[in-house]
């Protein structure tokens, strides 16, 4: 199925969880935070939340800022 991650198209297995998406992208072990359709998904739920086609996912980390 196809979803959007950080505004870019991303295809992945149907029924994928947030956790599996992060693994696929290599961020599972990183210090990142995730939104699905503008709602925060806390780490403890990464395994439970399943993604649907068309979902908009934001994966963020941290950069220098003032």
């Amino acid at each position, binding site marked *: 199925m196809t979803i959007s991650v950080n505004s870019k198209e991303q295809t992945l297995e149907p029924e994928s969880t947030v956790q599996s998406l992060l693994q696929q992208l290599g961020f599972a072990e990183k210090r990142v*935070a995730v939104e699905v359709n503008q709602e925060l998904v*806390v780490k403890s739920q990464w395994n439970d939340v399943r993604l649907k086609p068309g979902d908009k996912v*934001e*994966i963020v*980390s*941290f950069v*220098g*800022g*003032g």
Partner: protein
Amino acid sequence: MSELFNTVKSFKLGSYTLRSRLLVGTGKYPSLEIMRQALDASGCQVVTVAVRRVEMGQKNAEGILDYIDPKKYIILPNTAGCFTAADAIRSARLAREGLGVDWVKLEVLADKKTLLPDPLGTLEATQVLVKDGFKVLCYTNDDPIMARRLEDAGVTSVMPAGSPIGSGQGVLNPNNIRIILETIKVPVIVDAGVGTASDVCIAMELGAEGVLLNTGIAHAKDPVAMARAMGQACDAGYYAARSGRIPKKLYATASSPWEGLIESVKRPETIPGE
């Protein structure tokens, strides 16, 4: 012996007890290594970072965090780049989840040109985030009334701009900062506009609890040496503010005694002023 001189000058900010009153941003340094050295030279304990999307395919997403020793520094995420309360609230929640901290430096900007804060969006976001359990350190303009509204809304710190972000003009309106300090009980931290060490010193002498800056260090020709200067100026201003400075006069009082002068060769008929 000077009480003050012996007192450890720590203060409480959010959940933390801090010695250093200088908070330093991590943006726009020539390199991460120079940033690391500058943070060290500044003596700061709190550093700010921004929330941004990971670079797809780029595996090492943390970058900046690798250069900030968690044993030495407390990380304060900001909501820089947000122009609406809604975006600022989302950024704050993402930051809390990603960093496991309970505080945020709230910025809701009005436009990209002046980077001045939007008072209405800032107040709106503050109300939501405070209800959501955040300790909000709130960037705002130097209007004493907005500062009071933010305190009423439950902010942990009011952070008035000395002058526009990155303008390097220091504290343009000390009068407003003085009124804020008179009326606000939560810590007041001057944020933005600092160009050089004396700007930090002046902000502290006005009575601010601390100063937050970034560009003044990061864009100096020698960020590490400027960081040291900013740290020392912050301490200097802290002590000066509490040492009871002498009043200003048109002129003048002698620092050497008038008694016991040798007899003048040809005493001028009249010494003016005598």
